């Protein structure tokens, strides 16, 4: 295990924000740390980086205890916490050069990182003038600068446009697949995590609701087919007669559990052939709220 915590707890005053957390992050994984805002994700991450002193429990990173091996462990971690911490009066390159100096990293690596996050052209511009997406990318470059074994990223796709999100996702997949890195990434978007994570931990109100392989999660967070038609009642009856389970019927839409693309096509054809006009049909993921309900039910 790259990260292993046991009974990790933290309180702000009398309010307990992290409750007896036991994380298991295997080597080479992309571990998606999923939870709504305020669930305790950032607090947990700050404890993993020794920025917050743990009230209770222990943290092992690379199978070494964090408190007693702080510097050795931190030298193998690259991190991005909340919004990227960037000196606005310095250029993007200067921000990286400053960090390279502190980490004892070769200056050549700075240009490599700028190219990697596609900031080479804006390298000389003051970082204060960067867009949010550019700042986020610079933050990722800063995290990757020391070529760390473990990347801890707190909501790294915040503020990125769809292209930027895809690029980051591909980069993280590449890092774990080709360079044997481990990535611990937090997010409040289930769809985001499902697209790249190999392992998932779900936290709500400071408690770990679920932890395991992404496949185990998929079993719980079954996607649905969302159908908008002119006649919802007839459509629901027709589908049920054809042995489809209709999960939800609303005024102008209904949902059916998703199995495969073929099945989605068959459902569409069936409705059309029976004179029901389909306005829209698409695959939908459960939102976090519904996922929490499913997890609580399955427990």
């Amino acid at each position: 295990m790259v990260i292993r915590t046991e009974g990790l707890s933290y309180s702000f005053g009398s309010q307990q924000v992290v409750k007896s957390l036991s994380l298991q992050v295997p080597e080479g994984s992309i571990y998606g740390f999923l939870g709504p805002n305020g669930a305790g994700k950032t607090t947990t991450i700050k404890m993993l980086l020794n920025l917050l002193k743990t009230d209770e429990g222990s943290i092992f990173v690379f199978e070494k205890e964090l408190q007693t091996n702080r510097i050795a462990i931190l030298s193998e971690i690259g991190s991005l916490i909340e919004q990227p911490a960037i000196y606005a009066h310095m250029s993007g390159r200067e921000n990286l050069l400053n960090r390279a100096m502190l980490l004892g990293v070769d200056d050549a690596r700075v240009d490599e990182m700028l190219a990697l996050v596609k900031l080479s052209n804006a390298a000389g511009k003051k970082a204060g003038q960067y867009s949010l997406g550019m700042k986020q990318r610079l933050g990722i470059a800063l995290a990757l600068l020391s070529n760390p074994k473990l990347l801890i990223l707190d909501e790294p796709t915040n503020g990125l446009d769809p292209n930027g999100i895809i690029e980051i996702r591909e980069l993280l997949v590449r890092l774990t697949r080709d360079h044997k890195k481990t990535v611990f990434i937090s997010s409040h978007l289930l769809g985001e995590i499902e697209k790249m994570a190999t392992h998932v931990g779900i936290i709500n109100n400071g408690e770990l609701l679920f932890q395991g392989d992404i496949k185990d999660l998929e079993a719980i967070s079954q996607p649905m087919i969302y159908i908008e038609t002119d006649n919802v009642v007839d459509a629901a009856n027709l589908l049920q007669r054809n042995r489809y389970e209709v999960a939800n019927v609303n005024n102008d839409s209904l949902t059916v559990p998703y199995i495969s693309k073929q099945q989605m096509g068959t459902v569409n054809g069936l409705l059309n052939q029976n004179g029901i006009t389909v306005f829209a049909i698409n695959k939908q993921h459960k939102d976090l709220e519904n996922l929490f309900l499913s997890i609580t039910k399955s427990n």
Partner: protein
Amino acid sequence: MKGFILSFRSEFYKSRKTAGFWGAIILPFLISLLALSIFYFKSEKFVAMSGMLLWLQFALVSLGVMGTLLLPIYTIFIAYSVNNVEHKADTWKTLFSLPISRWSVYGAKFAYAVFLVLLCLSLFVLFTIGFGNLLSLLKPELKFNTYHLEWVLTQVYFKLFLSSLGILSIQFLMSLLWSDFLKPMGIGFILTIVGITAASKGWEYAYTLPYAHPMVALSSMFKNKRGPAQDIAIDVFTKDVFVAVAVSVVVFIAGYFIVQRKSVK
């Protein structure tokens, strides 16, 4: 030790383009330039003076403002400036998740603030001496070349430097803990007024107040106070200087333990 040196270099790198760093250079330059212009344009007033008196008058332009209000205010500003870089960029969390000990990060930052004050005061010596010599070329009728004030001036400014350390350490800690501008500035300013008042009224225990130290340092610098002497002897290590240094050591160490225990937001 390596972490400390890296952090110190990084402090310099970060501050190169900030008012905190340039203030340390521009402040002594401008004030010395002011002295230069006074003596240049009003040279007839100073022609009659002896070399020693002339140098003293010339140096007192800078020393006068620095010794009273400016040194405490400048010190407060430096303490704010080196910490504000991190508050503004929200970089404390990255600074303390580097593979560098907290001690090095904290120590280097404090050392850099000390360095800036030292740089500023050294440049006062340099510019005063430099401009004095320049004046003796531009206005040969002024008797700058008949006396040497270098050693005395170095001692005086060194004494001022030591006397500012108490203020620096207190302000440094306040600026480290509070991210806003008003709290450390406001408190520092009030304490400075109290310090100056105590020192200027000649309160016998003024030497115990860090914010009074720069002013007390100037009034306690002459060894022989009776009449004008042929040579000036400077008393650097007076009790107010010892108090200033002691306060800075204690507050610096106390600050380390606060930083060590503090959670980084």
